[in-house]
Protein backbone atom coordinates (compact mmCIF):
# COMPACT_ATOMS: atom_id res chain seq x y z
CA UNK A 1 0.00 0.00 0.00
CA UNK A 2 2.81 2.34 0.85
CA UNK A 3 4.46 1.47 -2.40
CA UNK A 4 1.25 2.37 -4.23
CA UNK A 5 0.98 5.78 -2.60
CA UNK A 6 4.63 6.39 -3.25
CA UNK A 7 4.16 5.53 -6.90
CA UNK A 8 1.16 7.81 -7.15
CA UNK A 9 3.13 10.72 -5.75
CA UNK A 10 6.15 9.94 -7.86
CA UNK A 11 3.97 10.02 -10.94
CA UNK A 12 2.84 13.57 -10.45
CA UNK A 13 4.93 16.36 -11.86
CA UNK A 14 5.84 17.67 -8.46
CA UNK A 15 6.64 14.28 -6.99
CA UNK A 16 8.92 13.46 -9.86
CA UNK A 17 10.64 16.81 -9.62
CA UNK A 18 11.11 16.37 -5.91
CA UNK A 19 12.60 12.93 -5.90
CA UNK A 20 14.96 13.82 -8.67
CA UNK A 21 16.26 16.93 -7.04
CA UNK A 22 19.00 16.24 -4.56
CA UNK A 23 18.64 19.72 -3.19
CA UNK A 24 14.96 19.27 -2.44
CA UNK A 25 15.50 15.99 -0.66
CA UNK A 26 18.47 17.17 1.39
CA UNK A 27 17.00 20.49 2.42
CA UNK A 28 13.64 19.07 3.37
CA UNK A 29 15.33 16.31 5.35
CA UNK A 30 17.43 18.77 7.27
CA UNK A 31 14.44 20.91 8.01
CA UNK A 32 12.45 17.91 9.06
CA UNK A 33 15.16 16.77 11.43
CA UNK A 34 15.48 20.17 13.04
CA UNK A 35 11.72 20.35 13.33
CA UNK A 36 11.50 16.99 15.03
CA UNK A 37 14.36 17.75 17.37
CA UNK A 38 12.83 20.96 18.57
CA UNK A 39 9.41 19.37 18.90
CA UNK A 40 10.78 16.61 21.06
CA UNK A 41 13.25 18.87 22.76
CA UNK A 42 12.61 17.30 26.08
CA UNK A 43 13.85 13.96 24.79
CA UNK A 44 16.53 15.07 22.37
CA UNK A 45 18.34 17.59 24.52
CA UNK A 46 20.61 16.08 27.14
CA UNK A 47 19.77 18.80 29.65
CA UNK A 48 17.01 21.27 30.29
CA UNK A 49 18.99 24.48 30.36
CA UNK A 50 16.14 26.49 31.81
CA UNK A 51 15.80 24.42 34.87
CA UNK A 52 17.92 26.31 37.44
CA UNK A 53 18.58 23.13 39.33
CA UNK A 54 20.49 21.51 36.47
CA UNK A 55 22.68 24.51 35.79
CA UNK A 56 25.80 25.40 37.70
CA UNK A 57 28.02 28.42 37.27
CA UNK A 58 30.98 26.15 37.87
CA UNK A 59 30.50 24.73 34.41
CA UNK A 60 30.48 28.11 32.73
CA UNK A 61 32.66 28.80 29.70
CA UNK A 62 33.50 25.19 29.03
CA UNK A 63 34.76 24.94 25.45
CA UNK A 64 33.53 22.26 23.01
CA UNK A 65 34.60 18.69 23.64
CA UNK A 66 37.38 18.68 21.01
CA UNK A 67 39.11 21.76 22.41
CA UNK A 68 41.48 21.95 25.31
CA UNK A 69 39.52 22.01 28.51
CA UNK A 70 36.42 20.55 26.91
CA UNK A 71 34.28 17.98 28.59
CA UNK A 72 32.35 15.04 27.18
CA UNK A 73 29.29 15.92 29.22
CA UNK A 74 28.97 19.23 27.35
CA UNK A 75 29.45 18.31 23.73
CA UNK A 76 29.44 21.80 22.30
CA UNK A 77 30.54 23.58 25.42
CA UNK A 78 28.62 25.79 27.82
CA UNK A 79 27.69 29.46 27.89
CA UNK A 80 28.38 32.15 30.44
CA UNK A 81 25.88 30.70 32.90
CA UNK A 82 26.94 27.11 32.58
CA UNK A 83 24.11 25.97 30.29
CA UNK A 84 24.84 23.25 27.78
CA UNK A 85 25.10 24.78 24.30
CA UNK A 86 23.50 21.90 22.47
CA UNK A 87 20.47 21.95 24.75
CA UNK A 88 20.03 25.70 24.60
CA UNK A 89 20.19 25.51 20.84
CA UNK A 90 17.51 22.85 20.66
CA UNK A 91 15.23 24.76 22.97
CA UNK A 92 16.08 27.98 21.23
CA UNK A 93 15.18 26.58 17.83
CA UNK A 94 11.86 25.55 19.25
CA UNK A 95 11.05 29.15 20.10
CA UNK A 96 12.27 30.34 16.72
CA UNK A 97 10.12 27.78 14.93
CA UNK A 98 7.04 28.48 17.02
CA UNK A 99 7.21 32.19 16.40
CA UNK A 100 8.01 31.59 12.74
CA UNK A 101 5.14 29.21 12.06
CA UNK A 102 2.59 31.11 14.08
CA UNK A 103 3.36 34.44 12.46
CA UNK A 104 3.30 33.01 8.96
CA UNK A 105 0.04 31.25 9.66
CA UNK A 106 -1.46 34.50 10.87
CA UNK A 107 -0.12 36.39 7.86
CA UNK A 108 -1.36 33.72 5.49
CA UNK A 109 -4.90 33.58 6.81
CA UNK A 110 -5.23 37.35 6.88
CA UNK A 111 -3.48 37.93 3.56
CA UNK A 112 -5.20 35.18 1.61
CA UNK A 113 -8.63 36.16 2.84
CA UNK A 114 -8.11 39.80 1.94
CA UNK A 115 -6.47 38.91 -1.36
CA UNK A 116 -9.20 36.57 -2.57
CA UNK A 117 -12.02 38.86 -1.56
CA UNK A 118 -10.32 41.92 -3.00
CA UNK A 119 -9.60 40.19 -6.29
CA UNK A 120 -13.05 38.75 -6.69
CA UNK A 121 -15.27 41.50 -5.35
CA UNK A 122 -13.33 44.36 -6.82
CA UNK A 123 -14.66 47.90 -6.71
CA UNK A 124 -13.81 50.29 -3.91
CA UNK A 125 -13.03 47.45 -1.54
CA UNK A 126 -10.31 46.16 -3.79
CA UNK A 127 -8.83 49.59 -4.32
CA UNK A 128 -8.61 50.24 -0.61
CA UNK A 129 -7.12 46.87 0.22
CA UNK A 130 -4.56 47.19 -2.54
CA UNK A 131 -3.55 50.71 -1.54
CA UNK A 132 -2.95 49.54 2.00
CA UNK A 133 -1.02 46.57 0.67
CA UNK A 134 1.10 48.76 -1.60
CA UNK A 135 1.90 51.23 1.13
CA UNK A 136 2.75 48.50 3.56
CA UNK A 137 4.90 46.71 1.05
CA UNK A 138 7.17 49.71 0.81
CA UNK A 139 7.77 49.45 4.54
CA UNK A 140 10.33 46.75 5.21
CA UNK A 141 9.41 43.87 7.50
CA UNK A 142 11.91 44.79 10.16
CA UNK A 143 10.68 48.31 10.41
CA UNK A 144 7.06 47.28 10.57
CA UNK A 145 7.78 44.71 13.23
CA UNK A 146 9.84 47.21 15.20
CA UNK A 147 7.12 49.82 15.04
CA UNK A 148 4.40 47.45 16.16
CA UNK A 149 6.65 46.13 18.87
CA UNK A 150 7.55 49.62 19.99
CA UNK A 151 3.94 50.70 20.17
CA UNK A 152 3.05 47.58 22.07
CA UNK A 153 5.77 48.29 24.56
CA UNK A 154 4.42 51.72 25.15
CA UNK A 155 0.89 50.51 25.56
CA UNK A 156 1.40 47.42 27.67
CA UNK A 157 2.60 47.91 31.21
CA UNK A 158 6.09 46.78 32.12
CA UNK A 159 5.01 43.81 34.19
CA UNK A 160 2.82 42.26 31.53
CA UNK A 161 5.51 42.78 29.00
CA UNK A 162 7.41 39.55 29.26
CA UNK A 163 4.29 37.44 29.27
CA UNK A 164 2.84 39.12 26.20
CA UNK A 165 6.13 39.40 24.36
CA UNK A 166 5.73 36.28 22.27
CA UNK A 167 2.20 37.15 21.21
CA UNK A 168 3.22 40.68 20.38
CA UNK A 169 6.10 39.34 18.35
CA UNK A 170 3.91 36.91 16.44
CA UNK A 171 1.42 39.67 15.76
CA UNK A 172 4.15 42.11 14.71
CA UNK A 173 5.82 39.74 12.27
CA UNK A 174 2.49 38.50 10.98
CA UNK A 175 1.29 42.03 10.31
CA UNK A 176 4.44 42.78 8.40
CA UNK A 177 4.12 39.71 6.19
CA UNK A 178 0.46 39.63 5.20
CA UNK A 179 0.77 42.03 2.24
CA UNK A 180 2.95 39.54 0.36
CA UNK A 181 0.20 36.97 0.59
CA UNK A 182 -2.49 39.45 -0.28
CA UNK A 183 -0.74 40.67 -3.38
CA UNK A 184 -0.01 37.23 -4.79
CA UNK A 185 -3.45 35.92 -3.91
CA UNK A 186 -5.19 38.86 -5.51
CA UNK A 187 -3.17 38.55 -8.71
CA UNK A 188 -3.97 34.84 -8.97
CA UNK A 189 -7.61 35.46 -8.16
CA UNK A 190 -7.86 38.02 -10.95
CA UNK A 191 -6.54 35.46 -13.41
CA UNK A 192 -8.94 32.77 -12.24
CA UNK A 193 -11.86 35.17 -12.15
CA UNK A 194 -11.62 35.59 -15.90
CA UNK A 195 -11.70 31.89 -16.53
CA UNK A 196 -14.86 30.44 -17.86
CA UNK A 197 -15.46 27.94 -15.08
CA UNK A 198 -16.04 30.91 -12.79
CA UNK A 199 -18.53 32.35 -15.28
CA UNK A 200 -20.25 28.97 -15.42
CA UNK A 201 -20.55 28.93 -11.63
CA UNK A 202 -22.02 32.40 -11.60
CA UNK A 203 -24.58 31.45 -14.22
CA UNK A 204 -25.66 28.48 -12.13
CA UNK A 205 -26.24 30.96 -9.35
CA UNK A 206 -23.69 29.78 -6.80
CA UNK A 207 -23.00 32.27 -4.05
CA UNK A 208 -19.89 34.42 -4.14
CA UNK A 209 -18.46 32.79 -1.05
CA UNK A 210 -18.72 29.35 -2.56
CA UNK A 211 -17.12 30.53 -5.77
CA UNK A 212 -14.27 32.25 -3.96
CA UNK A 213 -13.39 29.55 -1.48
CA UNK A 214 -14.54 26.32 -3.07
CA UNK A 215 -13.76 27.01 -6.70
CA UNK A 216 -11.04 29.64 -6.92
CA UNK A 217 -8.97 29.05 -3.80
CA UNK A 218 -7.93 25.44 -4.56
CA UNK A 219 -6.57 26.64 -7.87
CA UNK A 220 -4.34 29.33 -6.47
CA UNK A 221 -2.67 27.38 -3.69
CA UNK A 222 0.60 26.88 -5.50
CA UNK A 223 2.02 30.40 -5.41
CA UNK A 224 0.66 30.81 -1.88
CA UNK A 225 2.66 27.78 -0.77
CA UNK A 226 5.84 29.17 -2.27
CA UNK A 227 5.36 32.51 -0.54
CA UNK A 228 4.58 30.72 2.72
CA UNK A 229 7.78 28.70 2.62
CA UNK A 230 9.99 31.62 1.79
CA UNK A 231 8.03 33.74 4.22
CA UNK A 232 8.72 31.22 6.97
CA UNK A 233 12.45 31.62 6.46
CA UNK A 234 12.04 35.37 6.48
CA UNK A 235 9.92 35.26 9.64
CA UNK A 236 12.53 33.20 11.44
CA UNK A 237 15.25 35.59 10.38
CA UNK A 238 13.17 38.59 11.38
CA UNK A 239 12.47 37.12 14.79
CA UNK A 240 16.10 36.34 15.36
CA UNK A 241 17.07 39.84 14.27
CA UNK A 242 14.60 41.42 16.65
CA UNK A 243 15.79 39.18 19.47
CA UNK A 244 19.36 40.04 18.66
CA UNK A 245 18.51 43.70 18.88
CA UNK A 246 16.95 43.05 22.25
CA UNK A 247 13.36 43.72 21.32
CA UNK A 248 12.24 40.20 20.52
CA UNK A 249 11.45 37.32 22.83
CA UNK A 250 12.13 37.81 26.51
CA UNK A 251 15.49 36.55 27.78
CA UNK A 252 13.78 33.90 29.88
CA UNK A 253 12.73 31.96 26.78
CA UNK A 254 15.58 32.68 24.44
CA UNK A 255 15.42 31.97 20.75
CA UNK A 256 18.42 31.44 18.52
CA UNK A 257 18.70 35.18 18.00
CA UNK A 258 18.80 35.86 21.73
CA UNK A 259 21.52 33.25 22.15
CA UNK A 260 23.58 34.95 19.50
CA UNK A 261 23.18 38.22 21.30
CA UNK A 262 24.37 36.70 24.57
CA UNK A 263 27.36 35.18 22.88
CA UNK A 264 28.30 38.31 20.99
CA UNK A 265 29.73 39.83 24.11
CA UNK A 266 32.23 37.03 24.41
CA UNK A 267 33.21 36.67 20.80
CA UNK A 268 36.24 38.87 21.03
CA UNK A 269 37.41 37.59 24.36
CA UNK A 270 37.92 34.11 23.03
CA UNK A 271 34.78 32.17 23.91
CA UNK A 272 33.71 32.00 20.29
CA UNK A 273 31.49 28.93 20.57
CA UNK A 274 28.76 30.68 22.54
CA UNK A 275 27.83 32.71 19.48
CA UNK A 276 29.15 30.46 16.77
CA UNK A 277 27.00 27.37 17.20
CA UNK A 278 23.62 29.07 17.50
CA UNK A 279 24.57 31.18 14.48
CA UNK A 280 25.41 28.14 12.37
CA UNK A 281 22.25 26.44 13.50
CA UNK A 282 20.15 29.44 12.54
CA UNK A 283 21.79 29.70 9.16
CA UNK A 284 21.34 26.00 8.42
CA UNK A 285 17.68 26.25 9.38
CA UNK A 286 17.05 29.31 7.23
CA UNK A 287 19.06 27.91 4.35
CA UNK A 288 17.20 24.61 4.27
CA UNK A 289 13.85 26.37 4.23
CA UNK A 290 15.00 28.76 1.51
CA UNK A 291 16.33 25.95 -0.65
CA UNK A 292 13.06 24.14 -0.30
CA UNK A 293 11.15 27.27 -1.20
CA UNK A 294 13.39 27.94 -4.16
CA UNK A 295 12.95 24.44 -5.52
CA UNK A 296 9.21 24.74 -4.99
CA UNK A 297 9.04 27.99 -6.87
CA UNK A 298 10.78 26.55 -9.91
CA UNK A 299 8.88 23.27 -9.78
CA UNK A 300 5.51 24.97 -9.53
CA UNK A 301 6.09 27.63 -12.16
CA UNK A 302 4.24 26.66 -15.31
CA UNK A 303 5.87 29.41 -17.32
CA UNK A 304 9.40 28.11 -17.06
CA UNK A 305 9.93 25.52 -19.74
CA UNK A 306 11.69 22.54 -18.30
CA UNK A 307 14.86 21.39 -19.89
Amino acid at each position, binding site marked *: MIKKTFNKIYDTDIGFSFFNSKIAIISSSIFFIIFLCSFFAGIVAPYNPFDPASVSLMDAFTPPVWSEGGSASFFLGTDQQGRDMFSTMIYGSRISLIVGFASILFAMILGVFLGVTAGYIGGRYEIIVMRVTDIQLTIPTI*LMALLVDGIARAVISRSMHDEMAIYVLIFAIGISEWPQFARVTRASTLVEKNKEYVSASRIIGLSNIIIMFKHILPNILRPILVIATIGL*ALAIITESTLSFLGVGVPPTTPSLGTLIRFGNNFLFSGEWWITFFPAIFLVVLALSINLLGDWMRDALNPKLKK*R
Partner: protein
Amino acid sequence: MISYFFKRLLQSILVMFVVAFVSFSLFNFVGDPVNSMTGEDASDERRAEVREVLGLNDPVYIQFSRFVGNIIQGNFGISYQLKREVSDLIGERLPATLELVFVSAMLAIIIGTILGVYTGINRDSFISNVILVVSLAGVSLPTFIIGIMLIYLFSVILGVLPSFGRGEVTDLGFWTTGFLTLSGLKALILPSVTLSLFQMTYVIRLVRAEMMEILQTDYIKFARARGIKNNVINYKHALKNGLIPVITITGINIGTLIAFSIITETVFQWPGMGSLFINAVYFVDIPIMSAYMIMVAFIFVMINFIVDITYYFIDPRIRLKEESE
Protein backbone atom coordinates in the same frame (compact mmCIF):
# COMPACT_ATOMS: atom_id res chain seq x y z
CA MET B 1 2.33 64.70 -18.79
CA ILE B 2 1.82 67.41 -16.20
CA SER B 3 -1.31 65.70 -14.92
CA TYR B 4 0.61 62.46 -14.42
CA PHE B 5 3.16 64.24 -12.23
CA PHE B 6 0.49 66.16 -10.47
CA LYS B 7 -1.49 63.03 -9.63
CA ARG B 8 1.61 61.34 -8.24
CA LEU B 9 2.50 64.43 -6.26
CA LEU B 10 -0.94 64.55 -4.69
CA GLN B 11 -0.74 60.89 -3.75
CA SER B 12 2.63 61.47 -2.13
CA ILE B 13 1.31 64.34 -0.05
CA LEU B 14 -1.66 62.22 0.98
CA VAL B 15 0.60 59.44 2.19
CA MET B 16 2.68 61.91 4.18
CA PHE B 17 -0.45 63.16 5.85
CA VAL B 18 -1.47 59.68 6.87
CA VAL B 19 1.97 59.02 8.30
CA ALA B 20 1.93 62.31 10.11
CA PHE B 21 -1.40 61.44 11.63
CA VAL B 22 -0.23 58.04 12.82
CA SER B 23 2.82 59.67 14.25
CA PHE B 24 0.71 62.28 15.95
CA SER B 25 -1.49 59.60 17.48
CA LEU B 26 1.60 57.92 18.82
CA PHE B 27 2.48 61.10 20.61
CA ASN B 28 -0.83 61.75 22.16
CA PHE B 29 -2.53 58.49 22.76
CA VAL B 30 0.22 56.00 23.37
CA GLY B 31 1.73 56.18 26.75
CA ASP B 32 1.52 59.41 28.63
CA PRO B 33 3.69 62.26 27.41
CA VAL B 34 3.18 64.11 30.60
CA ASN B 35 4.55 61.25 32.64
CA SER B 36 7.55 60.93 30.44
CA MET B 37 8.38 64.59 30.77
CA THR B 38 7.79 64.99 34.45
CA GLY B 39 8.49 61.58 35.81
CA GLU B 40 6.06 59.38 37.69
CA ASP B 41 5.88 61.15 40.99
CA ALA B 42 5.32 64.75 39.98
CA SER B 43 2.65 66.74 41.72
CA ASP B 44 -0.73 67.33 40.17
CA GLU B 45 -0.10 71.02 39.67
CA ARG B 46 3.15 70.31 37.91
CA ARG B 47 1.28 67.93 35.68
CA ALA B 48 -1.41 70.43 34.84
CA GLU B 49 1.31 72.93 34.04
CA VAL B 50 3.04 70.57 31.68
CA ARG B 51 -0.27 69.72 30.06
CA GLU B 52 -0.87 73.38 29.38
CA VAL B 53 2.62 73.94 28.01
CA LEU B 54 2.37 70.93 25.74
CA GLY B 55 -0.99 72.19 24.56
CA LEU B 56 -2.71 68.93 25.42
CA ASN B 57 -5.90 70.64 26.43
CA ASP B 58 -6.72 71.92 22.97
CA PRO B 59 -9.06 70.08 20.61
CA VAL B 60 -7.53 67.35 18.48
CA TYR B 61 -7.54 69.12 15.13
CA ILE B 62 -5.74 72.13 16.55
CA GLN B 63 -3.13 69.88 18.09
CA PHE B 64 -2.74 68.08 14.80
CA SER B 65 -2.27 71.27 12.78
CA ARG B 66 0.21 72.49 15.34
CA PHE B 67 1.96 69.17 15.02
CA VAL B 68 2.11 69.40 11.22
CA GLY B 69 3.25 72.99 11.42
CA ASN B 70 6.06 72.00 13.71
CA ILE B 71 7.13 69.18 11.50
CA ILE B 72 7.34 71.39 8.46
CA GLN B 73 9.58 73.74 10.37
CA GLY B 74 11.71 70.85 11.47
CA ASN B 75 10.66 70.91 15.09
CA PHE B 76 10.17 67.38 16.30
CA GLY B 77 10.11 68.00 19.98
CA ILE B 78 12.44 66.94 22.72
CA SER B 79 13.71 63.44 23.36
CA TYR B 80 12.31 61.99 26.56
CA GLN B 81 15.43 60.08 27.28
CA LEU B 82 18.27 62.24 25.98
CA LYS B 83 16.62 65.53 26.81
CA ARG B 84 17.82 67.13 23.60
CA GLU B 85 16.08 68.57 20.57
CA VAL B 86 15.20 65.68 18.29
CA SER B 87 15.99 67.75 15.22
CA ASP B 88 19.54 68.25 16.46
CA LEU B 89 19.95 64.55 17.02
CA ILE B 90 18.66 63.80 13.56
CA GLY B 91 20.91 66.42 12.01
CA GLU B 92 23.93 64.83 13.62
CA ARG B 93 23.08 61.32 12.62
CA LEU B 94 21.40 61.57 9.27
CA PRO B 95 24.58 61.98 7.17
CA ALA B 96 26.04 58.80 8.65
CA THR B 97 23.03 56.74 7.69
CA LEU B 98 22.58 58.32 4.28
CA GLU B 99 26.17 57.77 3.27
CA LEU B 100 26.03 54.17 4.38
CA VAL B 101 22.76 53.55 2.59
CA PHE B 102 23.94 55.25 -0.58
CA VAL B 103 27.07 53.12 -0.88
CA SER B 104 25.17 49.94 -0.09
CA ALA B 105 22.48 50.77 -2.61
CA MET B 106 25.03 51.32 -5.35
CA LEU B 107 26.69 48.01 -4.53
CA ALA B 108 23.45 46.08 -4.39
CA ILE B 109 21.91 47.47 -7.55
CA ILE B 110 24.94 47.56 -9.79
CA ILE B 111 26.53 44.28 -8.85
CA GLY B 112 23.14 42.65 -8.40
CA THR B 113 21.94 43.66 -11.86
CA ILE B 114 25.13 42.57 -13.58
CA LEU B 115 25.12 39.18 -11.90
CA GLY B 116 21.38 38.80 -12.40
CA VAL B 117 21.65 39.44 -16.13
CA TYR B 118 24.57 37.06 -16.42
CA THR B 119 22.85 34.20 -14.62
CA GLY B 120 19.63 34.83 -16.51
CA ILE B 121 21.29 34.59 -19.89
CA ASN B 122 23.73 31.81 -19.11
CA ARG B 123 21.33 29.59 -17.28
CA ASP B 124 23.40 26.49 -16.94
CA SER B 125 26.98 27.63 -16.71
CA PHE B 126 29.13 26.67 -13.75
CA ILE B 127 29.75 30.27 -12.76
CA SER B 128 26.02 30.91 -12.74
CA ASN B 129 25.42 28.05 -10.38
CA VAL B 130 28.13 29.28 -8.06
CA ILE B 131 26.64 32.75 -8.05
CA LEU B 132 23.21 31.32 -7.31
CA VAL B 133 24.45 29.26 -4.38
CA VAL B 134 26.22 32.24 -2.90
CA SER B 135 23.16 34.38 -3.41
CA LEU B 136 21.08 31.83 -1.59
CA ALA B 137 23.43 32.12 1.33
CA GLY B 138 22.93 35.86 1.22
CA VAL B 139 19.21 35.45 1.69
CA SER B 140 19.55 32.92 4.48
CA LEU B 141 22.16 34.73 6.48
CA PRO B 142 20.61 37.34 8.70
CA THR B 143 22.32 40.67 8.36
CA PHE B 144 23.63 40.71 11.89
CA ILE B 145 25.32 37.36 11.43
CA ILE B 146 27.03 38.58 8.30
CA GLY B 147 28.17 41.62 10.23
CA ILE B 148 29.53 39.60 13.09
CA MET B 149 31.28 37.18 10.79
CA LEU B 150 32.91 39.96 8.80
CA ILE B 151 34.03 41.72 11.95
CA TYR B 152 35.50 38.52 13.28
CA LEU B 153 37.33 37.82 10.06
CA PHE B 154 38.58 41.24 9.07
CA SER B 155 38.96 42.99 12.41
CA VAL B 156 39.79 40.31 14.90
CA ILE B 157 41.70 37.77 12.87
CA LEU B 158 43.14 39.81 10.03
CA GLY B 159 43.08 43.17 11.73
CA VAL B 160 42.84 45.18 8.53
CA LEU B 161 39.51 46.93 8.93
CA PRO B 162 37.92 48.72 11.87
CA SER B 163 35.10 47.01 13.74
CA PHE B 164 33.19 50.04 14.92
CA GLY B 165 32.57 53.71 14.26
CA ARG B 166 32.91 55.90 11.21
CA GLY B 167 36.57 56.67 11.38
CA GLU B 168 37.64 60.25 10.84
CA VAL B 169 34.92 62.45 9.41
CA THR B 170 35.19 65.81 7.71
CA ASP B 171 32.79 68.47 8.94
CA LEU B 172 31.20 70.39 6.07
CA GLY B 173 28.93 72.46 8.22
CA PHE B 174 25.52 70.94 7.68
CA TRP B 175 26.97 67.59 6.72
CA THR B 176 29.70 65.33 8.05
CA THR B 177 31.27 63.02 5.52
CA GLY B 178 33.48 60.00 5.75
CA PHE B 179 34.27 59.98 2.06
CA LEU B 180 37.20 62.31 2.27
CA THR B 181 39.44 60.46 4.70
CA LEU B 182 41.11 57.11 4.33
CA SER B 183 39.96 55.93 7.75
CA GLY B 184 36.46 57.08 6.90
CA LEU B 185 36.46 55.04 3.73
CA LYS B 186 37.93 52.04 5.46
CA ALA B 187 35.25 52.22 8.10
CA LEU B 188 32.59 52.20 5.40
CA ILE B 189 33.65 48.96 3.79
CA LEU B 190 32.45 46.31 6.23
CA PRO B 191 29.14 47.93 7.12
CA SER B 192 28.19 48.65 3.52
CA VAL B 193 29.06 45.15 2.35
CA THR B 194 27.02 43.74 5.20
CA LEU B 195 24.11 45.98 4.46
CA SER B 196 24.12 45.43 0.72
CA LEU B 197 24.43 41.65 0.71
CA PHE B 198 20.82 40.86 1.46
CA GLN B 199 19.52 43.30 -1.12
CA MET B 200 22.08 42.25 -3.69
CA THR B 201 20.92 38.66 -3.61
CA TYR B 202 17.36 39.80 -3.91
CA VAL B 203 18.21 41.85 -6.99
CA ILE B 204 20.12 38.99 -8.55
CA ARG B 205 17.23 36.60 -8.19
CA LEU B 206 14.68 39.08 -9.45
CA VAL B 207 16.66 40.12 -12.50
CA ARG B 208 17.47 36.53 -13.29
CA ALA B 209 13.82 35.49 -13.14
CA GLU B 210 12.83 38.41 -15.37
CA MET B 211 15.50 37.70 -17.94
CA MET B 212 14.60 34.03 -18.12
CA GLU B 213 10.95 34.81 -18.66
CA ILE B 214 11.65 37.44 -21.29
CA LEU B 215 13.96 35.16 -23.22
CA GLN B 216 11.03 32.83 -23.76
CA THR B 217 8.62 35.39 -25.18
CA ASP B 218 7.35 35.44 -28.74
CA TYR B 219 9.05 38.68 -29.66
CA ILE B 220 12.45 37.32 -28.71
CA LYS B 221 11.72 34.21 -30.75
CA PHE B 222 10.70 36.36 -33.67
CA ALA B 223 13.90 38.38 -33.37
CA ARG B 224 15.86 35.16 -33.51
CA ALA B 225 13.86 34.07 -36.54
CA ARG B 226 14.91 37.30 -38.25
CA GLY B 227 18.52 36.41 -37.75
CA ILE B 228 19.37 38.99 -35.09
CA LYS B 229 22.56 37.88 -33.39
CA ASN B 230 22.39 36.32 -29.94
CA ASN B 231 24.44 39.01 -28.25
CA VAL B 232 22.20 41.71 -29.59
CA ILE B 233 19.12 39.81 -28.48
CA ASN B 234 20.46 39.23 -24.99
CA TYR B 235 21.92 42.59 -24.23
CA LYS B 236 19.70 44.91 -26.22
CA HIS B 237 16.27 43.40 -26.67
CA ALA B 238 15.93 41.33 -23.54
CA LEU B 239 17.80 43.66 -21.25
CA LYS B 240 15.72 46.73 -21.95
CA ASN B 241 12.54 44.87 -21.05
CA GLY B 242 14.20 43.25 -18.08
CA LEU B 243 15.31 46.48 -16.48
CA ILE B 244 11.82 47.74 -15.84
CA PRO B 245 11.22 45.73 -12.68
CA VAL B 246 14.68 46.68 -11.43
CA ILE B 247 13.55 50.27 -11.37
CA THR B 248 10.50 49.33 -9.33
CA ILE B 249 12.46 47.54 -6.74
CA THR B 250 15.05 50.28 -6.52
CA GLY B 251 12.48 52.28 -4.67
CA ILE B 252 11.73 49.45 -2.29
CA ASN B 253 15.43 48.64 -2.14
CA ILE B 254 16.45 51.93 -0.66
CA GLY B 255 13.61 51.69 1.81
CA THR B 256 14.71 48.26 2.95
CA LEU B 257 18.28 49.42 3.19
CA ILE B 258 17.28 52.23 5.49
CA ALA B 259 15.45 49.75 7.66
CA PHE B 260 18.24 47.21 7.72
CA SER B 261 20.70 49.95 8.52
CA ILE B 262 19.18 49.76 11.98
CA ILE B 263 20.74 46.35 12.39
CA THR B 264 24.00 47.17 10.71
CA GLU B 265 24.45 50.31 12.75
CA THR B 266 23.86 48.33 15.93
CA VAL B 267 26.41 45.68 15.04
CA PHE B 268 29.06 48.16 13.91
CA GLN B 269 28.19 50.89 16.40
CA TRP B 270 27.70 53.23 13.47
CA PRO B 271 26.42 56.60 14.76
CA GLY B 272 23.43 56.87 12.48
CA MET B 273 19.64 57.21 12.62
CA GLY B 274 19.18 53.48 12.98
CA SER B 275 20.97 53.05 16.27
CA LEU B 276 19.19 56.17 17.49
CA PHE B 277 15.87 54.57 16.65
CA ILE B 278 16.59 51.23 18.22
CA ASN B 279 17.47 52.96 21.46
CA ALA B 280 14.26 54.92 21.22
CA VAL B 281 12.24 51.73 20.90
CA TYR B 282 13.99 50.21 23.84
CA PHE B 283 13.42 53.21 26.08
CA VAL B 284 10.02 54.03 24.60
CA ASP B 285 11.25 57.44 23.55
CA ILE B 286 8.25 58.53 21.54
CA PRO B 287 9.46 61.82 20.03
CA ILE B 288 12.39 60.07 18.40
CA MET B 289 10.24 57.18 17.26
CA SER B 290 7.71 59.40 15.61
CA ALA B 291 10.34 61.67 14.09
CA TYR B 292 12.08 58.64 12.64
CA MET B 293 8.83 57.41 11.16
CA ILE B 294 8.19 60.71 9.47
CA MET B 295 11.73 61.10 8.14
CA VAL B 296 11.74 57.60 6.77
CA ALA B 297 8.29 57.94 5.25
CA PHE B 298 9.42 61.14 3.59
CA ILE B 299 12.42 59.44 2.05
CA PHE B 300 10.29 56.49 0.86
CA VAL B 301 7.69 58.75 -0.68
CA MET B 302 10.29 60.84 -2.47
CA ILE B 303 11.99 57.80 -3.87
CA ASN B 304 8.73 56.30 -5.09
CA PHE B 305 7.90 59.60 -6.73
CA ILE B 306 11.21 59.61 -8.58
CA VAL B 307 10.70 55.98 -9.59
CA ASP B 308 7.24 56.79 -11.01
CA ILE B 309 8.70 59.63 -13.04
CA THR B 310 11.51 57.46 -14.35
CA TYR B 311 8.97 54.84 -15.42
CA TYR B 312 7.21 57.47 -17.45
CA PHE B 313 10.29 58.09 -19.55
CA ILE B 314 11.22 54.47 -20.01
CA ASP B 315 8.02 52.64 -20.84
CA PRO B 316 6.30 54.13 -23.89
CA ARG B 317 3.08 52.35 -23.12
CA ILE B 318 2.55 54.41 -19.98
CA ARG B 319 3.32 57.64 -21.78
CA LEU B 320 0.72 57.01 -24.42
CA LYS B 321 -1.91 55.81 -21.99
CA GLU B 322 -1.57 58.97 -19.95
CA GLU B 323 -1.54 61.23 -22.95
CA SER B 324 -4.68 59.76 -24.42
CA GLU B 325 -6.71 60.25 -21.28
